[in-house]
């Protein structure tokens, strides 16, 4: 079974945040739960958001690829800094061939105030997860409402059929802590996108 927990992102996950206001944002790549920030590295990376953006819903995507450096026990982002415009969005994800790279989270601030935190996703934040192993994945949103992802094995599918199915990423809306649709069927290699339509401090985690 895959590991799935929006508070602890892995190489199978992506975390996206939309920038609605211009300004200078700094983010850290953390490993521990909220409250332990002082014991972690204070290395910060910058996102400069200009005011000349497009209208909401028509922003551009900026990918930040995190490379695991075992010697430094740190993820190193590429690029180190991002220049974006209002309504643009940044997607963080890991690229590693080290299976043991530890789970991480992203926490961003502006003017000493927390603006976004993957450990508790805010409105219009997005979590993606590519399922690599088949199984019946029951998860909870905010440790309450339950959803399920039924992941069938790709092994019996012709490659073309598999590729066709994997070319679609089903979208799950989360509003008021409720996932919609509640149940989704996919095949291994397919990505699910959870979109926080309404809500704050949203988490998605498997039921153990």
């Amino acid at each position, binding site marked *: 079974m895959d590991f799935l927990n929006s508070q602890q992102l892995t*190489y*199978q996950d*992506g975390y*996206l945040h*939309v920038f609605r206001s211009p300004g200078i944002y700094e983010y850290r790549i953390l490993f521990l739960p909220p409250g332990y920030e002082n014991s972690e590295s204070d290395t910060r990376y910058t996102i400069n958001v200009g005011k000349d953006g497009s209208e*909401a*819903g*028509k*922003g*551009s*995507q900026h*990918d930040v690829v995190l490379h695991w450096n075992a010697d430094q026990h740190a993820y190193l982002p590429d690029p180190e800094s991002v220049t974006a415009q209002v*309504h643009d*969005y940044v*997607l963080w*994800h890991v*690229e*590693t*061939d*080290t*299976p043991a790279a530890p789970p991480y989270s992203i926490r961003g601030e502006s003017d000493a105030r927390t603006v976004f935190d993957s450990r508790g996703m805010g409105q*219009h934040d*997005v979590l*993606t997860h*590519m399922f*690599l192993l088949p199984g019946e994945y029951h998860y909870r949103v905010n440790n309450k409402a339950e959803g399920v992802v039924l992941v069938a094995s*790709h*092994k019996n599918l012709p*490659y073309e059929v*598999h*590729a066709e199915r*994997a*070319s*679609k*990423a089903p*979208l799950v809306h989360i509003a008021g802590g409720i996932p919609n649709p509640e149940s989704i069927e996919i*095949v*291994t*290699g*397919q*990505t699910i*996108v959870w*979109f926080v*339509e309404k809500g704050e401090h949203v988490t998605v985690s498997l039921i153990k």
Partner: protein
Amino acid sequence: MDATIAVSEGGANQLMQKLLAGESISKSDSASWGPFTVGYNVNVALSGGTIELVDAPLNIVRLHNLNIAGNVGVFFTFDLGQILPKICIPPFQVCVDIPFIGTVCTPQVCIPWPPPITIPINLPFSVNVSADFGLSVKDAGSNWEVDLLVFPFSLFIDLSPMAGAIINQIETTVDGILNGIPLIGGLIAWLVNMVLGALSGVLSAILSTISSFIHDVILLLDLFSPTIPVPLLTFAKTQAMLPAGGPPDPEVDITIAALGATINDHELVATADFA
């Protein structure tokens, strides 16, 4: 006074079979060839064979069609990540329109290759050899021994016919592992060939090393050591001539002062001189 004991070829065969029953050995080693670490454990046992006694002046014990059989437990360990390139899936971009955000393209996932895999393969082998042994007599403390000492002989173990079985096993295992990874279906045959291609560059060297190791292990058997005499017959130097008749009448012993051994009329003849 002296005594003569003769052992026929049939009797010598029985003695030899008893000797062979105790001749087995097991040794292991390992080495690396590029990304492949290979461990091998060799077990060898001897059986069969027939004795021919060649008369003096040659005095040779000739062993025909001795079967040397055993198996090599070979363990191929390798890290796919050292052979295969980085592959990220899906090999195409997947995008989704999200309200209030826009078109979001999901990230690729780069496959972390599994930890090093170990593939066990059993390679049986069997060869028949013939060897000549010289006869010698040794004073072994309280005994006399009639020993065999092998003459150098040719022994060739060839594992190269096993290459196909090894390739098949590795191909099947790697194919099974890669089949579990989604969205590389069109690449699997190519990737398996990359592993087999890497193996093909070193497989003959691996098999040659293991063959040499088997050869060396076989020569560690006492019977095939050109420096270790192997006792075929043993006589106690002190022999009871008359049993004890009671406390005042103790056993009467005689002592073998010297022993000779030769082959006459296809019989192994031991001559004892008593003191």
